[in-house]
């Protein structure tokens, strides 16, 4: 399969399907066990400065003593270079990224003091500040409220329209159908790739992807209502529960 530049692609599949692994391979963090991957015309990792990767929220140490603005500035670090300090251009990009995701007012807060939705906004801002050609986002809208989800998707849509490629994993089939152009269904192998609306509403493909874990209800308006319960399975104890947008503690 190949993904065109400017795509807005949702990677969909049950837990353990390899969504995060696929993203990590594309980011050059782990080597594929078989097959070859080419990113921006080279092996993964070669053009790392043109790629922004955002890990899952659970993998981040939220107690870490960094502020929102510092986290976003990290997106600039490789461009700034070793032994050099951020310049006016870098500060400018950080300010703009924070404004884009609506977090300008929170710039001096410690990241642990943010709500789940705000944390996702900050990490998307970090990716924006890197000015990448390719976004690799691991569950950027999981567990956030509807407003945050819409805001973040607006930002991603704008990036895709500007010719950037966005690849995001998601558990949210409704979001994938409504907000993504394309979808990639995987379950340890590629089940299907194509227009998001067509794939997500295709009961046979979904059954194949989820192995019967998706509840598909006929909708009164004639469409199909899909209720995805996949992310409620094998939630290991100790895992951070899903976020809910809430007032910062």
């Amino acid at each position, binding site marked *: 399969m190949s993904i065109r530049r400017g795509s807005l692609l949702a990677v969909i599949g049950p837990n353990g399907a390899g969504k995060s692994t696929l993203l990590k391979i594309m980011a050059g963090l782990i080597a594929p066990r078989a097959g070859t991957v080419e990113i921006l015309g080279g092996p993964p990792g070669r053009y790392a400065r043109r790629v*922004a990767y*955002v*890990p899952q929220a659970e993998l981040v140490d939220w107690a*870490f*003593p960094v*502020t929102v603005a510092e986290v976003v500035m990290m997106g600039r670090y490789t461009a700034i270079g*070793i032994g050099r300090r951020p310049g006016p251009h870098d500060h400018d990009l950080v300010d703009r990224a924070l404004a884009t995701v609506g977090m300008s007012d929170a710039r001096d807060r*410690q990241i*642990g003091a943010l709500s789940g939705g705000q944390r996702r906004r900050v990490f998307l801002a970090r990716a924006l500040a*890197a000015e990448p050609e390719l976004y690799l986002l691991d569950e950027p809208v999981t567990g956030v409220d509807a407003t945050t989800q819409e805001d973040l998707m607006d930002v991603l849509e704008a990036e895709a329209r500007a010719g950037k490629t966005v690849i995001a994993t998601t558990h949210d089939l409704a979001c994938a159908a409504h907000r993504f152009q394309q979808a990639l269904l995987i379950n340890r192998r590629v089940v299907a790739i194509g227009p998001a609306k067509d794939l997500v509403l295709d009961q046979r493909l979904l059954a194949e992807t989820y192995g019967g874990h998706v509840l598909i209800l006929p909708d009164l308006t004639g469409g199909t209502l899909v209720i995805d319960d996949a992310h409620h399975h094998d939630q290991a104890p100790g895992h951070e529960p899903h976020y809910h947008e809430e007032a910062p503690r």
Partner: protein
Amino acid sequence: MIDLVVGPLSYGFMQRGLLAALIVGIVCAVMGAFVVLKGLAFIGDAVSHAAFPGLVVAYLIGIPLYIGGAVAAVLTALAIGVVSRRGSLRFDTAVGVLFAGTFAFGILLFSTIRGFVADLFGYLLGNVLGIGLGDLIQVAVLGAVVLIVVLVLRKELLFATFDPAGAAASGLPVTRLEYLLLALLGVTIVVSIQAVGIILVVAMLVTPAATAQLVVIRFDRLVALAVAIAVVSTILGLYLSFYLNVASGASIVLIETLAFGAALVFSPRSGALSGRRRSGVIAPTG
């Protein structure tokens, strides 16, 4: 009053000791920020104990003890890095095995030495007031090397510590940075052993940074505050040691520990009296 402060400095051993302890305190505080944030405290303890067989071997074959200790400490730090990448055992289990094993090897070798060996006891418990000029120069040079490397790679080490996956994906050589950090930790520990001894090195590394983490929310300020705590504790500790004739390393560590206790109670950010305790903000991670 002035005499109480200046008086001790008329002794050469006190001048050298204070200078050495300050360098050690500062280097430990800076490295300690990474140790605390990366959860390397146990590794620091392991590496300092693993330096022991290196010191004994160096003594037995008649090379400078520092070199033996440094080789053993850095090798152990890097070995821990390798073990942590394999991952068939729990990481702290592997470190525990390595740490006890190397220290046992040191004790075994030590027990073959006939008679009392003051030098080696000095390394177990530290005696910064007994430091010679040559050792002081070594401490200064190695300490400067560690500080310069950390200063130059500050951004990259911070990013790799905070979000290794994001840092690696953005093109930073995270694996090499982690090994570098472990090697720097090894050097720091060997430099510090002279001041506070193998057993207390981990306190010099962890306590100032841990105290600072209770108070501030920015990395730069955490490092600055940790250094300040280390400097004040070192000065107070050495004077305490001078006037009360008690062990210098232990005095420094105890004062740092008191500072930690004070922060635990009084910190406006997370102290027991702050009134708005945020669970999780100071929880240890990974």
